[in-house]
């Protein structure tokens, strides 16, 4: 497949609103692909470059992209940024600019899908000095060789944000349609492999093998997630249920094979080198090939320290040894997904728990099993007293469903109105805060789009503002007066008193009395709250208000 054909497919899809029609177009396109193109196409069409389990990163942000493009068209980077500001979308801005190409090249290349992928893979493998230069050259090559339409989608693909609305469900349905396979089989295979491209490849090559795909060590699977719930409903729906403390720490997945092991974060980043002490503790509890799921917490004098403390360790890349002794970490293991070549995720929680207790001698998170609301309530209060966030209720008969936020796990914690929002811009501070950013523009998500929802200027200490400036100054995309536009990377947890309708924000809603709670470096832009959540909360709040007035 030529990249231009991919771009044309994207263009068709971008115009379609109906999911069914999208599935049609995708199914039609899948049939035209060669075997080896299939996984690449599937990832690309979702705006992903590498499989989800892969630690590979392309590492190209808007700044680098603008520099490369500016070179090709012989303009200053600022010209590119102005075009972006007026268009509001990188893809269409690049599409327009690339027709002004000034740099000639020795060959007129007709890029293919596989060449684009091979070049990206190569770039991801280069690190250290010279890698920025190579990335810049690659961008020049891509834009040098591409037509305006190709450039639109190349730009978005390089930033892994294709904006055509093809999510995992849509492409899965297209695979199901083309290869005539049940969605449930595909879902299971996707959860286990964490690689929908590979699943499509298998669907073509050997569909029967999809039933027997297994978790692969060192290919982390997505973490199973919990919904908010309450004790009474949990017991009413399921009877006897397991309750564990909800730890205010950092989620991890531990993989061990023989003498090697890796620790992955919630975002499936490899954090092994940041937590050598935790790695050592986990290595000591078993000698079997294993995958464990748990939470790392920081403790001092027997009490857990807040989550931020854990992150100072988990995010640390340098001088790990120096900080290791000052922040003591301990893992709490609450699930087991794999043991000695066997997948355990299809077993029930109860069965897995039994195996866990047998295989792992230490660091297993305690639990109780009960159908007595009063007993679980006491356990909950006890957890809060001990400094934990609350409790998790887990249905004994439930399977482990990677990446699914289902009803089998319920989180019970005191009601706090917070939202996770991404920082999209900032305003310079005033007075003594004139050298740092003083307020921040926040957005929630609506599928592939970011919807501005609030600004936040309170809740920060001077130290926090200085730290934030330090982090954010390198991801400034453009400056306009006293405001800057930032690469949307950093996630804030924001408290608020209520959600209001607002004509000032394009989403139609705004937060009242927003205040900064914390930075959530463990969360990515995909994890932020959606406009639906905000609408739900608004509706809930309004019903509640009406109710209380009556």
């Amino acid at each position, binding site marked *: 497949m030529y990249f231009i054909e991919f771009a044309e497919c994207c263009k068709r899809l971008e115009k379609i609103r109906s999911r069914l029609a999208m599935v049609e177009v995708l199914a039609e396109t899948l049939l035209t692909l060669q075997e080896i193109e299939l996984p690449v196409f599937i990832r690309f069409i979702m705006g992903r470059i590498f499989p989800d389990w892969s630690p590979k990163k392309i590492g190209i942000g808007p700044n680098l992209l603008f520099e490369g493009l500016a*070179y090709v068209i012989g303009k200053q980077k600022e010209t590119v940024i102005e075009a972006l500001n007026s268009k509001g979308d990188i893809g269409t801005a690049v599409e327009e600019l690339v027709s002004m190409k000034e*740099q000639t090249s020795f*060959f007129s290349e007709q890029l293919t899908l596989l060449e684009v992928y091979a070049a990206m893979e190569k770039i991801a493998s280069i690190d250290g000095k*010279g890698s920025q230069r190579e990335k810049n050259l690659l961008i*020049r090559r891509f834009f040098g060789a591409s037509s305006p339409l190709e450039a639109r989608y190349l730009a978005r693909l390089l930033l892994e944000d294709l904006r055509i609305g093809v999510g995992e469900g849509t492409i899965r349905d297209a695979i199901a349609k083309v290869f005539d396979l049940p969605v449930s089989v595909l879902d299971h295979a996707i959860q286990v492999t964490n690689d929908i491209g590979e699943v499509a490849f298998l669907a073509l090559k050997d569909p029967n093998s999809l039933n027997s795909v297994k978790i692969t060590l060192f290919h982390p699977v997505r973490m199973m997630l919990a919904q908010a719930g309450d004790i009474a409903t949990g017991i009413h729906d399921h009877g006897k249920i397991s309750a564990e403390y909800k730890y205010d720490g950092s989620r991890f997945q531990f993989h061990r094979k023989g003498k090697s092991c890796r620790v992955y974060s919630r975002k499936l980043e490899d954090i092994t080198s940041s937590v050598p002490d935790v790695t050592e503790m986990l290595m000591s509890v078993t000698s079997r090939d294993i995958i464990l799921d748990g939470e790392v917490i920081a403790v001092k004098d027997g009490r857990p320290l807040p989550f931020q403390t854990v992150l100072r360790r988990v995010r640390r890349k340098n001088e790990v040894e120096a900080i290791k002794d000052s922040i003591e970490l301990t893992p709490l293991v609450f699930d087991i997904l794999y043991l000695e070549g066997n997948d355990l995720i299809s077993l029930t929680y109860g069965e897995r728990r039994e195996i866990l207790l047998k295989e792992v001698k230490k660091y297993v998170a305690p639990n109780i099993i009960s159908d007595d609301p009063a007993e679980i309530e006491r356990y909950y209060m006890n957890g809060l007293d001990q400094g934990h966030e609350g409790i998790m209720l887990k249905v004994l008969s439930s399977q482990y469903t990677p990446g699914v936020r289902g009803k089998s796990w319920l989180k019970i914690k005191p009601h706090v109105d917070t939202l996770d929002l991404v920082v999209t811009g900032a305003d310079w501070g005033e007075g003594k805060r004139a050298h740092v950013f003083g307020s921040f523009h926040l957005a929630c998500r609506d599928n592939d789009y970011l919807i501005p929802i609030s600004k936040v200027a309170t809740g920060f200490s001077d130290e926090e503002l200085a730290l934030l400036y330090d982090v954010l100054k390198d991801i400034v995309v453009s400056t306009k007066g006293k405001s800057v536009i930032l690469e949307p990377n950093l996630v804030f947890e924001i408290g608020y008193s209520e959600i209001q309708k607002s004509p000032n924000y394009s989403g139609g809603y705004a937060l009242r009395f927003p205040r900064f709670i914390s930075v959530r470096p463990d969360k990515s832009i995909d994890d932020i709250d959606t406009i639906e959540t905000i609408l739900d909360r608004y509706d809930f709040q309004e019903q509640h208000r009406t109710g209380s007035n009556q």
Partner: protein
Amino acid sequence: MMLKAIIDADILRETIEAIAALVSECRLHIENDGFSMLAVDTANVAMVKAVLQKTAFQSYEAESCEIGVDITKLRNILGTPGKTDQVKIELDETRHKLELSFMGYKYSVALLDTNTIRKEPNEPNIELPAKIIVPGMELNNAIKASMLISDKIALGVDTQEKNGPFFFMHADGDTDQINKTFGPTEVQFVNPVDSRSLFSIDYLKDMGKIFGKSASVEVHLGTDHPVKFIFDMSNGNAHFIYLLAPRIEAD
């Protein structure tokens, strides 16, 4: 696949640096009369051709083969030995490594799979009518001077001026300009033909650092055409060609 050779560190280093100015990896041809390579940079904008003759080596014994070389890595390794140290080069075919020994060190450097390296380009067959020979250092100095003003530079030959012909470099910044002309007393006009092309300083500066060390550089130019720099180093035992695609300004 066989290679056993000894060479002055300085000669090998100069050659590798000249290649490293444009590419980070390449397919290196080992022949019985020396090494050669041709590669295009990642962006398809610049090309480098290098030939290191057998006469550059103290001793040289080889069978023809093609190997994939991480040029950046070699350049870093060759930062260690002194000017007069000798480097022993051997190919370990079974382990797929290039062995470099000097000063008691022995580096075994993994070869790259040639299939993962971009195909060698065809050398473009283009007629560049204007030919001038310029002292390398002068050319490099003029490029460095232009960097202060702009990120592109026009190179050309003007035969119309009296007291000419002239070889000129001209750079336009947003507000500033720079002009440098070389007359018949400073450069040798092999074939003075009117010509003018615009190039990116981003590449010229990296090329200039290398050919700046060469006593003379043959420059071939046309109008809105690539530029070719031909130069020797290591007493004529190492021969290089740089080619750079022009920028064409929209009117």
